[in-house]
Each structure stands twice: as C-alpha cells, then as structure tokens.
C-alpha cells in the first residue's frame, strides 16, 4: 500500500472540495434562480468535463498552462512555480474536471426550493444574505452534501488528466490512481490489488450513502 499516494489523493480531494463547494453554491444559485439567454449553453459547458475525454482536458491544460503559454507564464510569475508537474496543477485540473459533480446536485437542490419559500423569505423582510444563510442553505444542504461526497470520491479516482500533467512525482503528483497504474505496469499486482480494493469499497460505500441520502430527501419532499 502506497500511503504517501493515498495521503496525497486525500489532500487533493479535500482542497478541491473546499474550494469548489462555496463557489458552486453561489454559481448554482445564480443558475437556478436566473433565466438568461444562452443559459442552456452555459449549463452544457459546465457539464462538458463529464463527457470530455481526460486526454483532451489534459492536452488543453498542458498547452494552456504550460510555460510556453502566456497564461502559464503569468501564473508561474504569480505562484512562483509552474502549474504543470506541480500539485497546484492537479488542484486546477481537479477543480475543472469536478465542476459538474459539484454544480449539478447543488443546482438541482436550489431549483427544488419552491418559489413560495423564497418569496416568503423576501416578504418576511430577510435580505439576500439572510435569506441565503437562514433559509436557502439549510434547504439545499442535502444537495451540498451529495456534491461534496461526489467531488471528494471523484477526485480520489481522477486518472487521465493527472497522468498527462502530473509527472508522477512521489508525494507531489503521484495520486493513488496513478500509483495503481504504476504498480500494474511494474507487475506488482498485489499492491495494485490492495489499493484497488480500498478505492472500490470506498466508492460503493459513498454511493450507497448518497443514494440513501437522495432517496430520503425525495421521500421528505414527496
């Protein structure tokens, strides 16, 4: 078992989730409550990482954030390190790839808030922030929880993009998923097997939990 890789994966998951969740809450709220031209396109764009091949994402990150690009050079000056072959690059990639996992459940949850509840909040004199904190967030909480669980477990398993822009640096960019691949390449099936088993169990439990949660919410709402 490659504990360092597991720890790195968990660190990546935690950081990604911590950054993505609050942003997703705000964006999901905006998408749920506002109608505007081209909204379907924005939503489609936000879903793109779900079906876009990881190699394509990897390619664009490599080209877009590599040092040959203007963006990559700017970021390097700002951050002091290059983005590719660096943990910060993985964070960036994870953020990008997990947008749909974070956004979708929260947006659905916001959309499920009846208009009447928001109207009532406004008419009770609650301003936008009070309404968000006291009324909306408690109501979308199950959606947020689902988003967190999905993001977390999905980051844990991210592979293709990391393979392309990570560089497989132990303790820095060698995540559990890469470690498994590595072990398989090096014929160490036993080690790969243990790590796979851990991720498999984690994935099934996660999903049983979220399915259960979703059902419960469905029942409560229904």
């Amino acid at each position, binding site marked *: 078992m490659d504990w360092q890789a597991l720890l790195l994966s968990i660190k990546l998951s935690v950081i990604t989730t911590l950054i993505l969740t609050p942003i997703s809450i705000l964006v999901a709220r905006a998408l749920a409550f506002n109608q505007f031209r081209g909204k379907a396109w924005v939503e489609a764009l936000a879903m793109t990482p779900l079906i876009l091949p990881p190699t394509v994402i990897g390619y664009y990150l490599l080209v877009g954030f590599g040092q040959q690009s203007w963006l990559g050079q700017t970021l390097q000056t700002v951050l002091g390190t290059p983005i590719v072959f660096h943990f910060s690059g993985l964070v960036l990639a994870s953020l990008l790839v997990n947008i749909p996992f974070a956004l979708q459940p929260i947006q659905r949850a916001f959309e499920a808030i009846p208009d009447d509840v928001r109207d009532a909040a406004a008419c009770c004199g609650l301003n936008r922030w009070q309404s968000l904190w006291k009324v909306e967030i408690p109501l979308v909480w199950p959606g947020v929880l689902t988003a967190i669980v999905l993001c977390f477990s999905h980051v844990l398993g991210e592979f293709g993009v990391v393979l392309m822009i990570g*560089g497989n640096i132990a303790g820095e960019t060698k995540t559990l998923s890469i470690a498994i691949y590595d072990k398989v390449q090096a014929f160490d099936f036993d080690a790969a097997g243990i790590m796979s088993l851990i991720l498999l169990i984690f994935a099934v439990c996660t999903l049983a939990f979220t399915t259960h949660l979703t059902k419960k919410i469905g029942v409560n709402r229904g």
Partner: protein
Amino acid sequence: QSIPTVAAAANVRFALDKIQQQFEQDTGKQVRISYGSSGQLMQQIKHGAPFEIFLSANIDYAQKIVDAKLAPPPAKIYAIGRLAIMHNKHVKLPLSNNLAYLKQELQQGKIQRFAIANPDHAPYGARAKDVLQAIGVWQQIQPKLLYGENVAQAAQFALSNASQGGIVALSLTKAKGFSEKADAVAIDAKLHPKLTQAMVLLNNASDTAKAFYAYLQSPKAQQTLLDFGFDLPK
C-alpha cells in the same frame, strides 16, 4: 490477412516509424506498431496481448518472454541504445556529456523538475537512474524527478520548459519535431551499463511479421538505427 502488430519500446519510436515506412515501400506489406515502456509491453504480452514482434529496450524483458515459452529463443539483439541529456531551448543552462553542470545546477537550486522514464519498468529509466547514481546526485535529484510512463513521455516532459530537462533516449532527440525545440547532448556511455536492446518473434507470428523481423536486421534498417543514434551490436 490481418496486419501484424509490433510492440516496441518507446525509445525506438521515430527510428522504427521510419523503418516501418521503408518496409511498406519495399515490400508492400503492412505492420502496425504499439509503443510503450518495455516492462509494460512485456507484461501485456504475458496477459495475452496479440503482438507478434517485441522490441525491448533491454535483453531481460525479451528473455522473459522466451522463458515464458511465448517466443522461441534466442532473443535477438538489434541495437545498443544511448542516453542523452536534454532540455527546452528556453532553459538557458549548459549541457555536457558527463553531466558536470547538472551537479552544479542542482546545488544552486536551478533544477526544479527533471524527467526520466520510470525506472521500475522502463529500461531507459533504469539506466538514467544508474547515470544519476554514478555522478552521485540520485539522492538529491530524486524529489525533483518526473517519471515518464515510458521514455517517450519522459522526453515529452523534459521538452516542456516547466522542467529543466531530463535524461532520455538519444534516438528520440533526433526526431524532427524535437530538435527545433530542444538542445540535447549524448551522455558518455561509460556512465551506465550497456543498453543492449533485444527483440523476439512471438510464437503466433504471421509471415508478414516474420518478414518485418527479418527486415529489421537488414542493412537498410540498421542504417536507419545508426542515423537515429543507436550503436549496432558487434
């Protein structure tokens, strides 16, 4: 008649591409090539991958295929590989064949990222590791190492100016798209054990595969290998 598949170590990529082209011109027959690290390919063959020729970057992996009775002996040595140290043209650091500057740059903290192939299953990675150990920087450089899945990915990593270079196969640095972007210097062969590259013709090989296997040993193919910086076996 299906087209036979050749499994080849990533280091012969550009040379073999050219040989394949010549072979198709000369014989009208076709082969297709899958590149990977020698270790990965050997393991895929053991799991039943339908390859008909295996060009390893060392002799051990080819021998393992023979030992597993998947190919008739002997493992045929087709080239002697050479390593090169390289970096992107934008990296304004000097290169030398004995890696004299590398040690210095490491100490000055000028090296943040340095690419080699994964020594666990890519022979070129293992030899690169030998080189780094030989010049006594292994401990120091290890945390900065980017491991390519195979030597071609290592070269791709090294080519990016997000790294300060890497140790890759000399043959890769001879590729067209490469020399415009990067500087490379062959590494003194004395710094590492010899990269004796062997190939085998697998049991299930078709006639075309056999023809390609023979073609690889033809003078024309050997000339191409020489052009790409390989040494030929005596």
